[in-house]
């Protein structure tokens, strides 16, 4: 599928806390050589390493409170 972004730089958003946001589709090669693919319009790549759906964000980076 052609889209305007084919002609322009791919947009990423980095955050101090939270995932790296990348325009999809995305293919990620992990440490152990396995490859994960996501075809979403925007992909949230986990940077805190706590995600249980790694390499995709599952909001595990969120601050947690005891109450």
């Amino acid at each position, binding site marked *: 599928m052609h889209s305007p972004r084919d002609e322009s730089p791919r947009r990423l958003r980095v955050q101090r806390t*939270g*995932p790296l946001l990348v325009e999809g589709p995305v293919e990620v090669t992990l440490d152990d050589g396995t490859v994960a693919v*996501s075809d*979403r*319009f925007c992909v949230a790549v986990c940077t805190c390493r706590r995600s249980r759906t790694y390499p995709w964000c599952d*909001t595990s980076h969120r*601050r*947690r*409170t005891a109450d």
Partner: protein
Amino acid sequence: MHTGLYEPTLPTDRGELSAATLAYLRRASGSLPPAGDAERSDPYGDDLQLALYLCYELHYRGFAGVDDEMEWDAALLAFRRALEDRFLAALRDDAPLPADVDSALAELLVEPVQGDGISYHLRDDGTLGQVREYAAQRSLYHLKEADPHAWVLPRLHGRAKAGMAAVEYDEFGAGRGERVHARLFADLMRDLSLDTGYGRYLDAACPQMLAVSNLMSLLGLHRRLRGALVGHFAAVEITSSPNCRRLAQAMERLGAGPAAEHFYREHVEADAVHEQVVRHEVVAGLLEAEPQLAADVAFGIAATGLVEDRFTEHLLGSWRSERSSLRHAL
């Protein structure tokens, strides 16, 4: 012969307002109650919420045996306005307005180590019967998932519109009919041996669930409430991902079935993306273009919390006293 979509049947009434609405829809009566009746009714009660729900459903799928012209019937719209005014005034009185949008969002972005909502209960102690009740209740929204929010698109511009449309595209299956979230929910219902017919559980649904759905329709249908719709959508998307993880765990523990698990697992990942897009593009984009809407965005967040809290209290309260949360057994 009618071969299109399944058309829901009209429910039974829950009091004078809903009885009058039903009679009017069937053309058994030519008049509707005066606005004063709505003003005196319980804004969160069965009767008002069902009457309002009936009015709103004319904009989605209508009802079998009800003339499609009723959607724009002037007398019915005037009556709906009285119901909406009562509901909206109650929400404005009862939902504690956050100081500003950022602090309201920040509060939602904190996860309790052990919370006490429905998803915690279903994950840890819920029964299959309770999971089926929960799905039947929520089907009032999930079988039209993301539909009320689509109405805001023409009222947004630039970044906010692009972000909202992108999230809605995902909700509507990203170009694939079998991935439409409403369809994934119907698949979940099938795993739970529930009837997937649209509106099938309207009679059984509690008024708190009707209010959850009515809030979305209210905010979606009124351009003047576009800020509140955006705040509402942000609140739903931000709280969804961790909730859906626990619900997926509940489905797994109870052996609900692959489609039931898939619906919630898909939402863990999808909504982790959606909440980012909604905050960075939709909320920020809207407030950049129309900063005067900040209080409305905050109200949408607060009102969503209020109706969801009421729904949670009703379900957990019913289950604690070993009663069904539904009005009729499944």
